[in-house]
């Protein structure tokens, strides 16, 4: 049994002015194994962030359930930490305090010295030594998200949920932090569920990439297995013969098929919402 399962999850938003409810997705099922890095990729508005928020417990689901390590979870919890697109650091706290708040919550029995050591360890891991006493206002976007990652890793959650974590960071810095994330993930082998619309990011980081059709009533149409061996780095992955095959496949999907997934009968897609997604492997 998979470690994290979103089991036949549906989400409806109430329609405008008493109109019919809008279906974001229906009967969506996805499974993530322990230690796996899974990415959902799709256009803006396809409901991928809603899916992530449902797994995080920050948003309610209309039908179905989320099962983590064999137990159904409801509501947010320390076992599913989110790295937010807009960082969500408390601007009135320093870098140290932001992470310490999380560490103290996760390990309420720890001594002060233990908390301090733990926080410093993760600040060092993301290369922010010396910035402990700075407030978020004094940090660049990249440094802010490093704090966000350090905070998330520091509480050692069962699942890390990354919600377009690098979307607000400039392209050059983004590459650097992606590589840092690869290294942190290699060290910890956390279970990670990420949503993004950056194809290169998805290939660099993921074991599997789930391709989501556009909403409303979006679904996971395909699952692409990233067969490029680890450890990966930005300049080594692009040398791999599968890299452009995977990249082209994902981009073709996003450009050609994502918007009319339901209409494209008999194509590589097909079948209504809720059917088993096609597994693609190069």
């Amino acid at each position, binding site marked *: 049994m998979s470690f994290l399962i979103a089991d036949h999850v549906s989400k409806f938003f109430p329609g405008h002015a008493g109109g019919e409810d809008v279906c974001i997705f229906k009967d969506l099922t996805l499974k993530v194994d322990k230690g796996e890095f899974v990415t959902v990729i799709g256009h803006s508005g396809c409901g991928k962030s809603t899916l992530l928020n449902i797994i995080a417990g920050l948003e309610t689901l209309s039908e179905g359930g989320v099962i983590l390590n064999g137990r159904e979870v409801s509501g*947010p919890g320390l076992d599913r930490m989110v790295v*937010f697109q807009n960082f*969500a650091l408390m601007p009135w706290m320093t870098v140290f305090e932001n992470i310490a708040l999380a560490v103290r919550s996760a390990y309420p029995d720890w001594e002060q010295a233990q908390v301090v050591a733990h926080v410093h360890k993760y600040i060092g891991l993301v290369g922010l030594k010396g910035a402990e006493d700075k407030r978020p206002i004094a940090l660049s976007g990249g440094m802010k998200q490093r704090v966000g990652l350090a905070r998330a890793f520091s509480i050692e959650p069962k699942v890390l949920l990354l919600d377009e974590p690098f979307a607000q960071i400039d392209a050059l810095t983004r590459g650097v932090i992606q590589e840092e994330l690869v290294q942190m993930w290699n060290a910890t082998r956390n279970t990670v569920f990420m949503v993004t619309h950056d194809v290169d990011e998805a290939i660099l980081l993921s074991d599997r990439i789930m391709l989501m059709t556009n909403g409303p009533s979006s679904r996971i149409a395909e699952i692409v297995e990233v067969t490029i061996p680890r450890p990966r780095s930005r300049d080594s992955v692009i040398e791999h013969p599968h890299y452009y095959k995977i990249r082209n496949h994902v981009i073709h999907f996003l450009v050609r098929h994502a918007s009319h997934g339901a209409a494209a009968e008999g194509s590589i897609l097909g079948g209504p919402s809720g059917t088993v997604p096609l597994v693609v492997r190069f």
Partner: protein
Amino acid sequence: MKTHENGSPWIISVFILVIFLGGWHLLTLRPSFHAKGKTDEQLQMMEFNGDIVRAGAEGYIWNPEKMNGVPGPLAVVEKARTELSEAFVIKGTNDHGIAYLVLYTVSRFAGGFLAASVVAIIFGVLLGLNRVLFRAVNPFIQVLKPISPLAWMPLLLYTVKDPKWTAVLVVFMAAVWPTLATTAFGVSSLKKEYLHVAAILQLSWFKRLYRVILPGAAPTIVNGLRIAFGSALVAVVPAEMLLGELGVGYLSWIEWNNLDIAGVIFAILVVGVVGVILDSGFNKLASLVTYQE
């Protein structure tokens, strides 16, 4: 734009002050009395009325004891000098030195303002966290907010039957609404992500309040407090006048009753100075709790 950066503002300030004081002095200057062209009968009548007094042999001058027109700056300085030299003297039940009057006003103000702030922040947070409650209570706040705090005074005086507490309650009434409204707004418009982080980290209700909600809403709450502070400061002076409670507001009124206009002007200046001191203290406190995003 560069020209605007040059020059010292305080030179201009001093210039404005000199112009103002000079103008005030000249406008309130009286020419000395000339008896020329007046009959003895007229002069006797004026002396009888107390307008003029005899000075030296057969000469008259304006009676310095009789008030006439607005006093000049020198008269106010003289008045300030005597008042300040007797700052800590208590001459009678209604004649306390200026230091005591300032103390009374400041403590009255501080009591009402602090009580109002505590009450307003507590209820503001509750309203800010509960959208339905906020919308249910908001019409009442909107009706109560624009009522002048002085309008409450007769009712408060009738209810508590004590002018001391009535004055504090008038300040309370002036200060409670702006803080309540802005606190509720600040808490309800707190960024969702902060609450999401708090929820994921499973912070207790209390920890969520004082580690996330209050600091997050602090800049907005401080803005509300600043408005409340100003309106409370404006309310305390007429409250003292109307209730006859000793304080700097009352000083202005009692000097008017004494027909001592220089005293009235001195009282006005004291009110201004007290306001500036309280305000700068408030700003120091405010800078401790606000943050930049």
